């Protein structure tokens, strides 16, 4: 049976969650989205039904969160709680029902990303852990580990200009966007490697070829599919 990290989610029955929860973590530009769609295709080819979810897409506060991101008027604690609201809405209204219906939930990031962002901004680790303590421990978590050098290159391939939040400009590391980006991404990577030790992510070398990475991921998913929920 599925387990919660710290305490049960109020008003939620977990006895019949027969699906699997698989999470892919990694920075923007780590190839995460590409891998999600490749793994999804692989699962579907094997006859498994897949539900995707990603951060900041909740019905409840998705639109307000986008406005907050544009305006940059919220403090770090408030923004962190805003993301938590968004995450929990999707957790309760997308992830849980899908698991109950026997789907494989392929999550394009989980709260670990939110946690890493909070921690590099100086949040109290206990505070963050306890907020997300009411979520399910995933069946598998992959972390795509990619060097900041490569990330910035992929960033240029994807978009012409740098993103305020992705560059950690709110942290006041440097007024120079490039320096801020590199420093911020290094801090996040370090934080993720700490979280990896704590939560036991499967680290995937994201510097390899797309096909090799997919192979590395699915070879770890395969044994999970035959184990009962």
């Amino acid at each position: 049976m599925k387990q919660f990290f710290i305490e049960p989610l109020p008003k939620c029955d977990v006895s019949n969650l027969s699906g699997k929860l698989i999470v892919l973590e990694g920075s923007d530009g780590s190839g995460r989205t590409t891998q999600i769609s490749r793994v999804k295709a692989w699962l579907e080819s094997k006859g498994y039904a897949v539900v995707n979810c990603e951060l900041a897409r909740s019905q409840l506060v998705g639109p307000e969160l986008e406005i907050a991101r544009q305006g940059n008027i919220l403090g770090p604690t408030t923004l962190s709680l805003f993301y938590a609201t968004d995450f929990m809405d999707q957790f309760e209204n997308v992830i849980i029902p899908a698991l109950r219906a026997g789907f494989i939930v392929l999550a394009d990031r989980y709260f670990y990303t939110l946690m890493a962002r909070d921690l590099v901004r100086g949040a109290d680790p206990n505070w963050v852990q306890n907020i997300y303590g009411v979520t399910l421990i995933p069946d598998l978590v992959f972390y795509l580990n990619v060097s900041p050098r490569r990330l910035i290159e992929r960033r240029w391939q994807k978009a012409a200009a740098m993103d305020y939040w992705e560059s950690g400009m709110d942290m006041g590391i440097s007024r120079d966007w490039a320096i801020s980006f590199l420093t911020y991404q290094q801090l996040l990577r370090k934080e993720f490697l700490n979280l990896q030790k704590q939560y036991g992510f499967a680290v995937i070398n994201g510097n390899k070829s797309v096909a090799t990475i997919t192979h590395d991921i699915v070879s770890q998913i395969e044994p999970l599919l035959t184990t009962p929920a």
Partner: protein
Amino acid sequence: MDVKNKRHFPGVLIAVEGLDGSGKSTQLYLVKRWLEINGYHVYLTEWNSSDMVRQAIKRGKKKNLLTPTTFSLVHAVDFSDRYHRQIQPLLKTGFIALADRYIFTAFARDAVRGCSPAWLRNLYSFAIVPDITFYFKLPSGAAIERILSNRPKIKYYEAGMDLNLHPEVYDSFRIYQTRIGAEYDRMSAEFGFTEIDATQPIEVQQETIRKIITNRIDLSSFKNGVVL
């Protein structure tokens, strides 16, 4: 994890808590007037929902999205914004802040909806515990009658209609308010509330409150505003 004790801010925070209809807003208004007329620098902060929360709650209700956890989180976002941009700066710059409802309102409401007390106390642990929290204690029957006589139309969440306690709004309201009252009673010892008998005449309560404030807070340092 407990809500942290008072950090050393030069300002003072006084909060009022209690059931709807317990008369706490009237009492806080009178405290504000008393302090203002005597030349103290005092500001009021209310547990009002911002547009963001109103939008989200409206959408959540329409699409049946809200759960105890997200209901709680949406309000925590709102409170955090108010806390970090209004309450904490007031305290850090040495003013008197009067709070009409504070984190205990969330603790009571959200616990009744099923969130665990430990989870809630952690969620709001960024906020300091007030110097004085006045709890306006009223037999819940009396509070209910006050509300029912003043406001014929009771709002959905005020009646706890989302909890499916009773199909009738007034009956649901009675059950819900009784449960909230029980939560307040439980918190009174935990957080050291100063209890005020809300069945007393308004001016009698106010006299008691003013005495308590005078005894517990050195008001003389707030006459000139900023003491940084």
